[in-house]
């Protein structure tokens, strides 16, 4: 049997849709465990990235290199190891799973917000100032809208990352769709393992679509041509 037939057989069994730890409950739990760290990371990293980008105004100096290097270095951290370490040292608590997710969601958001704002054309900044805008107005009405495509890319990257890591966090006892995978692997049942994996994939693709819709709605029409992919 293929992965999809295993997954489909398990997902379509009625008993998996009722009671405690059912599919709908774990989907909601997974969304909650992903949304909370993402929001916390965004509240920290978007303003910080925008502020740093505004200060560097176009120049790609040492600060820019440092931030980009930080983001690249964060990819080297194995999330499974970080989650396990906190559990072994501190025991399982909200801090144990929340902290790693927040810490690892920050770099992509920070870098993209920084690059988006730092990359705003000098002429555009000068025009905004010439039109009599205050610094605050320049940031909110000119720089952030222009940087929005990149800011959304950063949030999308972080969101996908958080959804994936929340799955792995089932190993240290977190709820969500990863439960089906980890428990299924432990009891050598491929049905829930495949079903859980397929649901996680669907969730990740829905996150992609959500950000595609958001960028349609939020990014000014004149900027859409310049949207970047990475």
């Amino acid at each position, binding site marked *: 049997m293929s992965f999809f037939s295993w997954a489909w057989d398990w997902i379509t069994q009625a008993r998996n849709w009722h009671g405690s730890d059912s599919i709908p409950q774990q989907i909601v739990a997974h969304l909650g465990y992903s949304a909370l760290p993402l929001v916390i990371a965004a509240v920290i990293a978007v303003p910080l990235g925008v502020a740093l980008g505004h200060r560097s105004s176009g120049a790609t100096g040492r600060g820019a290199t440092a931030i980009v290097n930080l983001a*690249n270095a964060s990819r080297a*951290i194995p999330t499974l190891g970080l989650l396990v*370490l906190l559990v072994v040292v501190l025991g399982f608590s909200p801090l144990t799973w929340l902290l790693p997710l927040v810490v690892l969601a920050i770099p992509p958001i920070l870098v993209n917000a920084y690059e988006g704002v730092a990359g705003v054309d000098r002429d555009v900044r000068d025009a905004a100032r010439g039109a009599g805008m205050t610094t605050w107005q320049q940031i909110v009405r000119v720089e952030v809208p222009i940087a929005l495509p990149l800011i959304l890319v950063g949030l999308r990257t972080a969101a996908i990352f958080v959804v*994936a890591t929340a799955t792995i966090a089932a190993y240290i006892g977190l709820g969500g769709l990863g439960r089906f995978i980890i428990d299924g692997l432990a009891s050598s049942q491929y049905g829930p393992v495949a079903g859980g994996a397929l649901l996680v*994939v669907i969730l990740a693709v829905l996150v992609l679509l959500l950000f595609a819709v958001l960028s349609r709605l939020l990014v000014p029409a004149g900027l859409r041509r310049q949207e970047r992919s990475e």
Partner: protein
Amino acid sequence: MDWSWIPGNGAQIWQLTYENAYLGIIPALIGLVISIPLGILAARWRWFYPPVLAVVNVIYAIPALALFIALIPTFGLTDTNVIVALTLYSMCVITPNVVAGLRAVPASVRQAATAMGYGTLRRLLAVELPLAVPVIIAGLRVAVVSAISLASVGQLIGVSQLGYLFIDGEQRAFPTEVYVGLVLVIALAIACDLVLVGIRRALTPWAVRS
């Protein structure tokens, strides 16, 4: 921290580090070999790039654990499973960089090459690709660093590398083992990254160094 554990388990730690390097570097290299022709085609035919980019974005969004599991019916609980999955991620990272690197070659440079009598293929191999090397290697660096750190997730489907130290350390509630695993994964990633920076410098002797 129990330092005496490290020399006592030196052989196993070395073996796991070797496995981790293998599972990280091989996918990045296969990914590079696939991404270069794919990127060349996508840079040449404008219509070809948007669908490639869409596929790349979707694959990259698939969590590693789910991808490993989806490959179990085909490849089983083997090294091959992890290598195939990480190769797919590497392609997703490197291909857009190949396209960006090739597109960034100035038109004047291309025209100069043509004026000197370079054909399309020779211009591509001798002028455009060498100029794209820094951007391609930037993608390769991200790919290899990510692959080395993602490989540890393979432990959850029973494929051993440094991730073994995380799982074993967790089951025995033994922090030293987890610390050692974390430090070695990060050190391995940094070492590969530095090697690639060196290769880039060797391949682009004309680049301005700060």
